[in-house]
């Protein structure tokens, strides 16, 4: 069924992913998923004054995993941490024009990774 197709936007983010890579002096790093399930997403943040100044990702996973990772970095770039924390996996999927149902659970974890990175940043601040 056509609902198993990736949208054009997904394919765009898959083939030209935004913000791939690592940040050498990241002050927040988050990782979710595990290789057993076929998806690992790692988000690097550079936070200044509670604003995300830079964000990068590395992802092991399917097309949806890579596209959602890319999309989440676009969505949070320049946002405040509070704004970023409001972004859900669902919102990422919607920003991509939707995902095939089978991808909704397993490969749509980029917002979680981003939240983990923010938590990591905050826990470091509290020290």
């Amino acid at each position: 069924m056509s609902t198993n197709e990736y949208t054009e936007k997904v394919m765009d983010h898959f083939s030209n992913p935004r913000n791939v890579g690592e940040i050498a002096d990241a002050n927040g790093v988050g990782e979710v998923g595990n290789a057993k399930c076929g998806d690992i997403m790692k988000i690097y943040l550079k936070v200044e004054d509670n604003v995300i100044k830079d964000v990068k990702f590395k992802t092991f996973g399917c097309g949806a995993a890579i596209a959602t990772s890319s999309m989440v970095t676009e969505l949070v770039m320049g946002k405040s941490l509070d704004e970023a924390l409001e972004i859900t996996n669902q919102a990422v999927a919607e920003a991509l024009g939707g995902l095939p149902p089978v991808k909704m659970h397993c490969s749509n974890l980029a917002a979680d990774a981003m939240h983990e990175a923010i938590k990591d940043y905050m826990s470091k601040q509290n020290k």
Partner: protein
Amino acid sequence: MKRIYFDHAATTPTDKTIANTMLEYMTTKFGNPSSVHSFGREVRKEVSEARENIAALINANANEIFFTSGGSESDNFALKGIAFANKNKGNHIITTQIEHHAILHTCQWLEKQGFEVTYLPVDEDGMISLDELKAAITDKTILISIMFANNEVGTIEPIKEIGAIAKEHGIYFHTDAVQAVANVEIDVQDMNIDLLSLSGHKFYGPKGIGAIYIRRGVKIQAVQLGGAQERNMRAGTENVPAIVGLGMSAVIAKRDFVEKNAHLVALRDKLIKGIQEQIPDIKLNGHPTKRLPGNVNFSFRYIEGESLLLSLDMKGIAASSGSACTSGSLDPSHVLLAMGLIHEIAHGSLRISLGRDNTEEDIAYTLEVLPQIIARLRSMSPLCAENSLGVTAKECKTCYKK
């Protein structure tokens, strides 16, 4: 963009001559062969000719061939048909961990109906052990079902030896030869095969048609019940166009066997060698020599199969993967796991299955494109030992459990 089709193990195009002939049987010679009248009579001979041609391909008798809707039906038929017909004799079935789901899921269903199933393990090449097979046999064993050649990794099992063991113990031997037919020599007499499944669309025949060979004298129940077609063994109006097409595909397979397979082996070995030379951190899956002529299967560390397939597709190359994401389940290929690969590695597998129309150029192009794709995906992967900062971010796990 030029497109290269490398997914012949999934399905092949129907041969053009076959398709054109089928057109005639759809619109003009469309009769039901069970009918008394001339429209029925005029197709009856063709149906029996098709049966003979299928039989000839595997050295069976025509009256041992029954048409089905495909490989899955033949597999279901063999297992359920034998199980239900012989349950007074025993309730134990032996198969392997690397069978197609048409076998595995049917076995699981039979377990719910009170049968017991042994799923034989395989070694890291995907090969079963004859000793383990012998050890698994009990006096309740009624059926051994072991695939002729594996659809993912191409490994060819020791069918003749299995046949001898089955015969010695008086146990029926079924083989799912869906991937082997037309690609490997099959002789049901010499190999002591009692039942065999095949599927038309895997060797340039039509989709929606297959056959099951059932040795004369084998005690089996029909599974699809109804009309008296196929001598009461498989109900349903005969799909004459497809039956005729299947017969033709058998003739072509026989005629072109040596030439076609030499062509495939040459391309296959070139591709395997090229990949091995150009790309590090890989593993060839399947047996190095006892493998299907058209099968190439590699695992590429640190990357996942679907994104590899999508990337290849964007370059015009159509291949497949045992990856989770293609099947809608989280689990990677049960075949690769049975061969001992850890999940990470199993997720990053690629199957290229070659066909008769593939060329040297296709291989050259692939060897140009694939390394770039792998490099790009690895550069995005958090698992990769060599990350972009030039330090080992994370120790990679080894490829094997052991």
